[in-house]
């Protein structure tokens, strides 16, 4: 048990002028990098790192925590307003967030995003602060086979629910998984499917692909239709409406929180998995499933709550075990080590002042994001009414910039353009690019765990049916793929039997 004195010192240490200003700076940088497609928390923290080397460990980590946390909100702003997720974890938010913007309810969607995000972060912090070591030990019961099946389950759920066309969702997910095999194999280092192109040896670049699928296809769609993003005048509903709407769905908040915190506790599962699974769960329990994907606030609540709870949950294995739960957490872990904060089960005692200062900073940031949203959401939402002549070139420029700056390579711009064409086609003909993106994110983790499981079992596939957790996950995967077809048959049989 951590002595109360350490906790108090940590909390008090955050409330110095220097730390509060650094917190605010981190927040602003985080929102900006979150909005820019392709930049994300990892790149944002790396950009800020050179300016933080002269700071004390606790101050530097407070600055980084602002970037790490606020980038999630920035990513959601971009997803909601221009259908372009700033990071992969925000991709679930656009499924209902962007349709809300098209109906003139962008400010409300931003309000829901900030409120659910704040609640997810605050409650996630409480869980993190008091139960991190216990959750970490439970998470260790997931071996390679279980992690592989969990990723497969997440993909099957998303494929089944997006656009309510499981067959096309499955095809989209398969495209993503096949693309994820391009490049060098993580275990045996063989080069696969590169066709002699050297830039592909590191694999299909994920961020450039995501920018193409969402941003460039959006540029094409907006150009073709020649209308503003919002197809109606901005509705009177604003941020406060979104704030109140969030609290009208307490069970959604609870379910999404549990999913987010648990997925975050699993090493390498990631926030995109949490946000999609929380979204899928809400569809599963909803009475009227047809409202999802058309601007249903519940969809935004679920994805944002899952995402932000997972952001805190990500820190459980990161701090307790030194195993990062996501790319952003991995960079955060590296920065912690640079500043002498070594993760492990004793970090809460040995570095308690720094760690609890960090938790306090997260708490303040979650409240500030709410305030930031309250002040600026209605201005952000007006982006949806900006003429195409301005907004389309801006989206195009920032998208190409996001692709270019990662490796300063024009090959990446070609990748973005190709996937832009693919994304446009997919959207036109009923394929959702979301399973493809998720498959690209989860593919490497899925394959790595797949291969590890087979090595452990000496090539036997029985390992995937060995433990209770594996069997449950296999059953859930099959159920999620088959249920969309079984459900109408069962309803028809019930109707005839009456």
């Amino acid at each position, binding site marked *: 048990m951590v002595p109360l004195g350490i906790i108090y010192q940590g909390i008090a240490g955050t409330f110095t002028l220097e730390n509060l200003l650094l917190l605010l700076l981190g927040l602003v940088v985080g929102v900006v990098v979150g909005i820019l497609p392709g930049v994300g928390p990892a790149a944002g923290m790396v*950009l800020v790192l050179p300016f933080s080397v002269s700071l004390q460990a606790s101050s530097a980590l407070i600055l980084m925590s602002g970037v790490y946390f606020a980038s999630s909100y920035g990513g959601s702003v971009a997803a909601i307003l221009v259908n372009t997720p700033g990071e992969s974890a925000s991709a679930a938010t656009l499924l209902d967030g962007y349709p809300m913007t098209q109906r003139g309810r962008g400010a409300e969607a931003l309000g829901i995003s900030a409120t659910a995000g704040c609640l997810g972060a605050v409650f996630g912090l409480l869980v993190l602060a008091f139960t991190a070591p216990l959750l970490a030990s439970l998470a260790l019961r997931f071996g390679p086979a279980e992690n592989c099946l969990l990723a497969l389950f997440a993909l099957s759920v998303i494929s089944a629910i997006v*656009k*309510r*066309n*499981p*067959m*096309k969702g*499955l*095809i989209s997910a*398969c*495209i993503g*998984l*096949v693309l994820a*095999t391009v490049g060098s*194999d993580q*275990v*045996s280092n*063989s080069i*696969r*499917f590169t066709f002699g192109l050297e830039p592909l040896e590191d694999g299909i670049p994920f961020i450039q692909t995501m920018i193409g699928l969402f941003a*460039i296809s959006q*540029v*094409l*769609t907006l*150009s*073709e*239709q*020649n209308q503003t993003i919002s197809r109606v005048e901005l509705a009177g509903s604003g941020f406060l409406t979104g704030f109140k709407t969030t609290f009208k769905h307490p069970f959604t908040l609870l379910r999404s929180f549990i999913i987010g915190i648990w997925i975050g506790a699993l090493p390498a599962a990631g926030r995109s998995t949490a946000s999609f699974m929380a979204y899928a769960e809400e569809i599963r329990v909803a009475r009227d499933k047809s409202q999802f*994907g058309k601007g249903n606030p519940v969809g935004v609540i679920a994805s944002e709550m899952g995402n932000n709870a997972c952001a805190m949950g990500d820190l459980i294995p990161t701090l307790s075990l030194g195993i990062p739960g996501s790319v952003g957490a991995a960079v955060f872990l590296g920065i912690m080590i640079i500043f002498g904060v070594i993760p492990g089960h004793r970090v809460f005692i040995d570095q308690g002042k720094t760690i609890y200062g960090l938790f306090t900073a997260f708490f303040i940031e979650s409240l500030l994001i709410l305030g930031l949203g309250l002040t600026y959401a209605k201005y952000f939402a007006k982006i949806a009414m900006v*003429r*195409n*002549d*301005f907004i*389309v*070139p*801006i989206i*195009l*420029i920032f998208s*190409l*910039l996001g692709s*270019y*700056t990662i490796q*300063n390579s*024009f090959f990446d*711009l*070609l990748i973005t*353009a190709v996937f*832009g064409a693919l994304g446009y*086609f997919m959207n*036109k*003909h*009923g394929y959702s690019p979301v399973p493809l993106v998720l498959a690209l994110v989860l593919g490497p983790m899925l394959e790595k765990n797949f*291969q590890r499981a087979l090595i452990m079992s000496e090539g036997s596939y029985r390992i995937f049916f060995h433990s209770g957790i594996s069997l449950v996950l296999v059953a859930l995967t099959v159920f999620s793929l088959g249920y*969309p*077809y079984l459900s*109408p*048959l069962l309803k*028809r*049989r019930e109707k*005839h039997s009456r």
Partner: protein
Amino acid sequence: MQQDGARSLFEYPAESIFRGYWIPPPNVEPPMFPKKFKDPVFIFNGSLLIVFIWMNHLADRFSERAQKFPKFVLGIGILALTFWMVAYLIFPGLLKFIEAQAEKEEDSAGNRSRYYGAWLCIAGSILMGYLFGFIFVVPTAFLSYGLIPGEKKRWISLIALMLVMTACFYVGFYRILHIPVLKGVVLDID
């Protein structure tokens, strides 16, 4: 024949095979093969199936460990695509059942010339960036969009915004972050 939708999926094609000619199920269009082959979704799925089969064949050249996962994924993809193709060509009732719950796409018939104009804008921006440096993407994107698919109004505000953004890019990315935005194949100011 039963009118029940669930049983008609298999009954009509089976009857068709038995009689040697197509008996269309009720409420399902008869297969008009030439039109079906022109459907973009059919062409996309068909091409994908061919690509997956070819990649599955290429995977034989990898080591045993390296080929397991790609073959697993390609196998699922080939199965799914084959199932879809068979349903599309031979069992349209089955396809209708599969896609019965799918969201109906909004009928948004866009302007094709604006679509091609947008592609010209994207391609032109990337080409200018490649030749002269990334910073030239900014003015190219604004001017080409304004000229080609844009509405060709408010030139002054468009040009003003273009100049401001170019200046911000230069200062922000080149001067502060040292990202090489002035390095191209033809022009290299770095």
